C-alpha cells in the first residue's frame, strides 16, 4: 500500500525535524529565551556574546509582544528565560508560580516615530489628534500600546487613531514604508530602525518609562544555563550591550 | 441545397468527404462507428471548423479555409437534432421549442405561441408544460425535432435520431419520424449506423468508412451491389474479393478458385454470395455444384428459425441453414464440413 509508505516517510521526516533541538552533539544545550519584541537587536547581540562565552550552549530567541509571550508561558510553552517589556506581564507569570525572583535589567521610553524625512511635518504629540494625518499606536493589549496611551493621557491629548497594530514591529513597518505618518514606539525601536525611521523626542514630563524585568523560569530544563544567562544580562557586559542599543539602566 | 467538401484532420481521423443534399432530399450517411459521420454533421453545423474544403448552403459559403471564410454556428441556417436530443433540462418542452425563436429576438409570448403550434403539429400539445426528464423517448425526439424546425432552417441535420430509443419504441418512432421529415421541404441530412433506419428514412445513402465515402446511391442500388465488406455485412451478403483467372474463374485473394456462371466484368472483381445459397454436407457431394470445398465450422449463430453458420477459410463465408440441418450434421464450432455453391448463385461485379 503506497499510501501507508508515504505516511510512514512523512512521520519519520517530522520526528527527525522535531529533534533539531538537541543538535549534532550530545553536549549541546539549547536555551529558549522569550524576549519582548523591542529587545530584538539588543538580545541578538547578548545571545551571540553569551554563546561565545559558553561553548555548548545555543540561545534560541522567541520574540513577540510581551503579552503574547506571557500567554504562551501561562499555557505551558517551554521557555527557559522570560524577558518582558512590562512589569505587569511579568507579574502575571510570577503570580502563576512559574518563576520567582525577577530582576529589572533595563529601561526604555516612548518616542514618536515618523518616516524618514518626516513627510507629514509631524512636530509633537499634539499632531496625534490631527484627523488628517494617518496615525498608529500599538494595540492596547501590548505593552507599547499601554505605554503609548499613557503618554498621550499625560499630555492630555485624545488621539485620532487609524490603526492599533498588534505589536511595535508591524507598527514600525507601516511607518517605515510611509503608510502611516506617525506612531508611538519605543526609543530603542527608532534606533534599531536606522535611517528608515526618524524619532521625535517626547518631553520628559509627558513621557513614561518602561521597566524591563527578566527571570529564569522554574520549569526550565536547563536551570544552570538559564541562571547564567540572566546573570549575563545583568552584568556590566550585558548592560553595555543593552546601552549600545538604546536601553537605559534599570 | 447543401454543397459540401469536407476535409478535417481530427486526432486519428482523416476525413475527406464530398456530398450534396438537394432541397426536398433526405440523405442518410451510413457507416461504422468512428467513420467520421458525426464529424461531417458538426462541420456543416459549424461546430467543427474545416481544415480543407468548403461548405455552401443555399448558395452562401459558410466555411472556406482557403479564403478565410468562417461563419459561426449561430448564424448558419441549420437545425440540428442531437443524438441525446440535448433538451434544456431546466426549461419546459414549450420553452425548449421556443428557445430558437427567443434567440432570434422574438418576444416570449410570440415565441411560445409559435412553439405551441409546432407541438400541436407534432401531436405533442399535451407535453408543452412537461420537463424533458418527464418525456418518453419518442416524445423527447419529437420535441427535439420541433425545436430544430421552429427556426425554419434551410437544412436539417440529424445525428443518430433513433439510437437513444429502446428497441420497442424504435419502429414506431421511425415511422413517425419519416412522416415528420416528409413535411419539411428543405434538405435533410441524417447520420445513422442502423441500415434499417437508413433505408426507411432516406432517399439516398452515402456510405462513409474510415473518413471516406465508399459508396453512394439509392438504398436499392447500394444493397444490391455492395462495394465493401461493411455494406455486404450490413445487408447480410457474403462478399469475396479476387482477380480473374480465366473467362469464368476467379482466384480469390485468399488463394481459392471459384467458378462463376457469367463472363467476368473485369480483372478485379467482387463476388456476392447469399448465405442461403451456401449448402453444407458431411461428405464431398456429387452433382452439379461447380464450387465445393472442405472447411471447418468457425461459429454458429441462431436467429429465430434460421441458423447462420460461419465457415473458416479459404472461402470464409456464412451459410444460412435450418436448425434441423444443424442437428442432422451435428454442427458445432470445429466440425469439419463440405460447403458448396452453384456457379449461378455467384454474382461477380467490378471492384
Amino acid at each position: 500500500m503506497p499510501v501507508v509508505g508515504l505516511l510512514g516517510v512523512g512521520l519519520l521526516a517530522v520526528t527527525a525535524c522535531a529533534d533539531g533541538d538537541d543538535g549534532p552533539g550530545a553536549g549541546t544545550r539549547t536555551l529558549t529565551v522569550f524576549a519582548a519584541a523591542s529587545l530584538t537587536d539588543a538580545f541578538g547581540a547578548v545571545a551571540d556574546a553569551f554563546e561565545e562565552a559558553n561553548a555548548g550552549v545555543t540561545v534560541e530567541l522567541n520574540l513577540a509582544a510581551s503579552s503574547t509571550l506571557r500567554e504562551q508561558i501561562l499555557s505551558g510553552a517551554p521557555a527557559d528565560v522570560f524577558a518582558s517589556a512590562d512589569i505587569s506581564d511579568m507579574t502575571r507569570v510570577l503570580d502563576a508560580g512559574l518563576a520567582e525572583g525577577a530582576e529589572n535589567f533595563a529601561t526604555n521610553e516612548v518616542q514618536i516615530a515618523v518616516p524618514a524625512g518626516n513627510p507629514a511635518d509631524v512636530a509633537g504629540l499634539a499632531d496625534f489628534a490631527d484627523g488628517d494625518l494617518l496615525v498608529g499606536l500599538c494595540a492596547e493589549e501590548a505593552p507599547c500600546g499601554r505605554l503609548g496611551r499613557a503618554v498621550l493621557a499625560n499630555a492630555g491629548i485624545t488621539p485620532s487613531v487609524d490603526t492599533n497594530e498588534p505589536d511595535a514591529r508591524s507598527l514600525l513597518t507601516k511607518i517605515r514604508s510611509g503608510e502611516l505618518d506617525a506612531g508611538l514606539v519605543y526609543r530603542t525601536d527608532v534606533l534599531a530602525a536606522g535611517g528608515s525611521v526618524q524619532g521625535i523626542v517626547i518631553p520628559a514630563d509627558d513621557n513614561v518609562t518602561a521597566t524591563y524585568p527578566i527571570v529564569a523560569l522554574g520549569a526550565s530544563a536547563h536551570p544552570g544555563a538559564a541562571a547564567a544567562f540572566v546573570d549575563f544580562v545583568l552584568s556590566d557586559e550585558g548592560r553595555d550591550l543593552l546601552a549600545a542599543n538604546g536601553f537605559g539602566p534599570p | 441545397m447543401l454543397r459540401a467538401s469536407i476535409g478535417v484532420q481530427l486526432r486519428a481521423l482523416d476525413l475527406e468527404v464530398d456530398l450534396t443534399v438537394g432541397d426536398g432530399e433526405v440523405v442518410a450517411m451510413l457507416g461504422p462507428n468512428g467513420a467520421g459521420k458525426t464529424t461531417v454533421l458538426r462541420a456543416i453545423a459549424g461546430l467543427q471548423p474545416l481544415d480543407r474544403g468548403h461548405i455552401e448552403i443555399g448558395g452562401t459559403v459558410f466555411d472556406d479555409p482557403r479564403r478565410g471564410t468562417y461563419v459561426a454556428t449561430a448564424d448558419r441556417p441549420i437545425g440540428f437534432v442531437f443524438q441525446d436530443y440535448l433538451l434544456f433540462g431546466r426549461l419546459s418542452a414549450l420553452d425548449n421549442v421556443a428557445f430558437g425563436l427567443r434567440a432570434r429576438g422574438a418576444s416570449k409570448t410570440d415565441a411560445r405561441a409559435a412553439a405551441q403550434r409546432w407541438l400541436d403539429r407534432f401531436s405533442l400539445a399535451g407535453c408543452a408544460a412537461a420537463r424533458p426528464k418527464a418525456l418518453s423517448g419518442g416524445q423527447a425526439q419529437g420535441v427535439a425535432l420541433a425545436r430544430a424546425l421552429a427556426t425554419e432552417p434551410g437544412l436539417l441535420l440529424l445525428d443518430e435520431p433513433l439510437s437513444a430509443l429502446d428497441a420497442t419504441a424504435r419502429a414506431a418512432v421511425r415511422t413517425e419520424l419519416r412522416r415528420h421529415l416528409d413535411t419539411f421541404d428543405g434538405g435533410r441530412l441524417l447520420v445513422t449506423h442502423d441500415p434499417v433506419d437508413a433505408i426507411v428514412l432516406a432517399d439516398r445513402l452515402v456510405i462513409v468508412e474510415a473518413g471516406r465515402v465508399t459508396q453512394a446511391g439509392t438504398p436499392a442500388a447500394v444493397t444490391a451491389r455492395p462495394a465493401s465488406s461493411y455494406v455486404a455485412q450490413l445487408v447480410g451478403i457474403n462478399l469475396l474479393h479476387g482477380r480473374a483467372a480465366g473467362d469464368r474463374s476467379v482466384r480469390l485473394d485468399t488463394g481459392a478458385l471459384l467458378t462463376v456462371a457469367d463472363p467476368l466484368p473485369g480483372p478485379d472483381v467482387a463476388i456476392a454470395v447469399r448465405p442461403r445459397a451456401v449448402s453444407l454436407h458431411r461428405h464431398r457431394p456429387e452433382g452439379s455444384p461447380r464450387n465445393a470445398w472442405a472447411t471447418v465450422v468457425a461459429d454458429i449463430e441462431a436467429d429465430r428459425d434460421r441458423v447462420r453458420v460461419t465457415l473458416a477459410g479459404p472461402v470464409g463465408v456464412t451459410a444460412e441453414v435450418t436448425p434441423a440441418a444443424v442437428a442432422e450434421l451435428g454442427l458445432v464450432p470445429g466440425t469439419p464440413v463440405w460447403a458448396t455453391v452453384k456457379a449461378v448463385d455467384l454474382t461477380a461485379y467490378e471492384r
Partner: protein
Amino acid sequence: MTIRDRTQGHRGQGHAQGHAPWPILVLAAAALAYLAVPFVALLQRAPWSDLGELVGQPVVRDALRLSLTTAFAATGVSLLLGIPLAWALARTRFPGRSAARALVTLPMVLPPVVGGAALLFAFGRRGLLGGPVYDSTGFLLPFSIWGVVAATTFVAMPFLVLTVESGLRAADTRYEDAAATLGASRWMIFWRITVPHATPSIIAGAVLCWARALGEFGATVTFAGNLQGRTQTMPLAVFLALESDRDAAIALSLVLIAVSLAVLLPLRDRWLATPS
C-alpha cells in the same frame, strides 16, 4: 428465500453505501475526531456563565458586523470578477493561460501576511497604483473598510475561481452547441446555458470564498490595519483578546463558529452537487 432477501437489501442500499473496508472507516473516524477535538476543548473552556455579557459588548458587535459585511462584500466582488475569469480559464485558449492560472493559485499558496504586504506595495499610500490615486483624489484603501474588503477578496477569490473553473470544465458543453445551432448569441449561451449549468459549482465556490473571507487575518491586519468599528474583524479581535482576556477570546470564537454554522448547515447537498 433468505438469499434473495439479502440481495434485495444490498440492492436497496446502493453499492456505494454498502460495507466499506474497515481501514477506510477507521481512518475516516480518526479524521473526524481530529477535527472535532479542538472544538470540544473550546466548548469545554467556554465561560458559559459570562457568555451573554461578553457577547453583548460593543467590541464584539462591531467585529461581527464588520466580519459579516466584508465577507459578503468580498464574496460579491469575487463573484463579479471571478466567474468571468473562471470562464476564460476553462473555455478559452489564450497565450499565457497556464501562467494566469498559476497567478490565480498564488494567493492560496502565499502566507496571507505576504499577500497583505504585496497589497500595500500596490495599493498603499506609497503604492504603485495607490500612490497616484491618493495624490490625486485622496482616496486610500488601507485603514478603511474598503481595505478589509480588498484584502479578503485577494485571498478568497482564488477559491471561487478555481472551483467554478473546474465546474465549467466538467460541464457538458454539448448543450452550448445545441443552443448555438438554435441561433443563440454567445452572450445568451453564457447567461441561459453556461451559468445555470454551473450553478452548483458557483454556489460551492461562493461558500468557500465566504468562509475564507470570514476567517482572514494576516492580509487584513497587514493591509487594512486594526481599528474597532472600522477594520477590526472577528479574527483580529480574537487574536488580540487572546493576550488580554482569554474568556473574551473564547466567547468571540464561539460567536464566529455559531455564525459560520448558521450559514453552512442550511446548505443542502443537492445545491452543491452536479445535476446528472
